[in-house]
């Protein structure tokens, strides 16, 4: 998805990957497979290394799980990726490495759309990590996660912790992002419930309220026409026809109109949010 592409670009620019320098044959082969994008073969070789090194207290075991996780992530196999990250965290020898891997796990959770899981993990890192750099990274990615779930206030709060603590050239970027987030917070959204109520009272008005004029006028005309049929039947004392027209024609268009009003409001809100998200991500990608 293009939205994730820009997210990965940001991640890659901000935090370069950990890499291994090893004289171990198996690990070297695994690295080569990984680098040429043959992730299936790379995973096999990392697993082989892990199996034969399981009795040793070796940092490369955690590293291998980490690379397996990345390989799965590149294949978008989220469950396997998350499992490998967790194993990588469990087998890491230092607190710093563990925290680094937790950041990567959080990135994966964001990529897989599990924003709540990512935020929970990142908040824990912000609270308990001993390393200032990790805390900053955690707040940055919590900000990103909040952006994707359109929680502007939380995103603003997270970025306000990250940006003031980094180099001065990013201060301008922070100002732009903060200003956009402030605008996003002040946006007047359309209430789907209110849109539905409007369209219940006057068909089409909910859609117009949600900015969907074409659909609104269309709904109004159709409902007026079918409503007219009903009233005409009543005036002509054709009660059976009136019931039939109400049940099978008017009811259908009237219910559809109420449903569409609600959907129009939701779409309107999503469009606004998406536009803010794209603009903020564009600014962040320039870091």
């Amino acid at each position, binding site marked *: 998805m293009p939205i994730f592409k820009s997210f990965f670009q940001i991640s890659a620019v901000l935090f*370069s990957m950990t890499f291994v320098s090893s004289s171990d044959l198996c690990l070297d082969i695994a690295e080569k497979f990984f680098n040429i994008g043959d992730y299936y073969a790379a995973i*096999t070789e990392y697993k082989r290394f892990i*199996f034969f090194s399981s009795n040793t207290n070796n940092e490369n075991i955690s590293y291998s799980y980490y690379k397996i996780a990345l390989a799965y992530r590149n294949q978008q196999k989220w469950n396997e990726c998350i499992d490998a990250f967790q194993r990588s965290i469990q087998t890491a020898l230092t607190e710093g490495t563990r925290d680094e891997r937790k950041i990567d796990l959080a990135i994966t959770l964001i990529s897989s759309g599990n924003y709540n899981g990512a935020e929970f993990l990142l908040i824990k890192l912000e609270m308990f990590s001993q390393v200032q750099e990790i805390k900053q990274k955690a707040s940055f990615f919590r900000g990103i996660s909040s952006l994707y779930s359109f929680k502007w206030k939380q995103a603003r709060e997270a970025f306000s912790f990250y940006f003031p603590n980094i180099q001065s050239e990013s201060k301008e970027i922070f100002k732009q992002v903060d200003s956009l987030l402030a605008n996003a917070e002040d946006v007047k959204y359309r209430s789907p419930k209110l849109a539905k109520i409007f369209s219940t009272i006057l068909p089409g008005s909910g859609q117009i309220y949600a900015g969907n004029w074409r659909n609104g006028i269309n709904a109004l005309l159709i409902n007026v026409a079918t409503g007219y049929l009903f009233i005409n039947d009543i005036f002509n004392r054709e009660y059976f026809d009136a019931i039939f027209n109400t049940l099978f024609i008017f009811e259908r268009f009237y219910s559809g109109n109420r449903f569409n009003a609600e959907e129009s409001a939701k779409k309107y809100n999503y469009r606004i949010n998406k536009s803010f998200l794209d603009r903020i991500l564009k600014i962040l990608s320039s870091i």
Partner: protein
Amino acid sequence: MHQFLSANIYQVNYYSPENILKFAEYLYQEGDYIRAAAEFQRYLFYYGEDLATKDSIYHKIGLCYRFSNDLQKSINYFQKVIFNYPQSNYLDDSYYQASYCYFLMGKYKESIAFSEANISFVKSDTIKLKMQQMIGINYIYKKEWMKALDFFDSFEEKEKKDSFTTLLVNFTKEGQRLPTKSRFLAGLISSVIPGTGKMYCHRTTDGIFSLLTIGLTSWQAYEGFHKKGINSVKGWIYGTISAFFYLGNIYGSIVAVNIYNQQLENRFFKKIEITLNAHF
């Protein structure tokens, strides 16, 4: 940020045949069957024709493919054991596994034919019984209830008393008595009173709605023709709609029976599947 990690001070010979085999077994235990199969094949490649335990490796590869649902490949490997190693300890199980693979592929006829043709070569009584039961299961899945019952009836007394055989006989009897609905009857009653075919399949709301729709459109057609005679536009429009709904409802009732029967059978076979998974 670059993090250099320490080199592995132990230099294991990762690609020695023994270690490849160990790694393959590890992958098999981990449930990573496709990778395990590849490692077993690599192990075979190292040894060529000299390997004494080649049959056990073929058997293991067959199992790997079976568990990863690549059933035709699985059968090919079990057949390698069957054709090339007549004295193998894995021969009996290979016969059984091949038969089971045919069953899993939905090739019930082939599974029965294979089991019947080879059961006499199986030495183990346990596996022989399993293959017999497999034949019976295939009859059940073919919905040939009488054949299945006759087949189970032909078992020896000791085999009949086996708890799994008893369970299969019960399943067969249950399958025979499945309360399926008749398509003909559904079509017939729907053509007399629209909607009743659907009600017969326990889709009451659907049936009532069909009855109302057809009833109301027919009434509109009748009213149109009654007022303006044969030239009534309203009569012709509603008459056509009504006829369309009427025929559609008959067809819909037959489809409803098919769906009902299918769901009933699916539930029944799901129950058997769970039992099979627990047993085999």
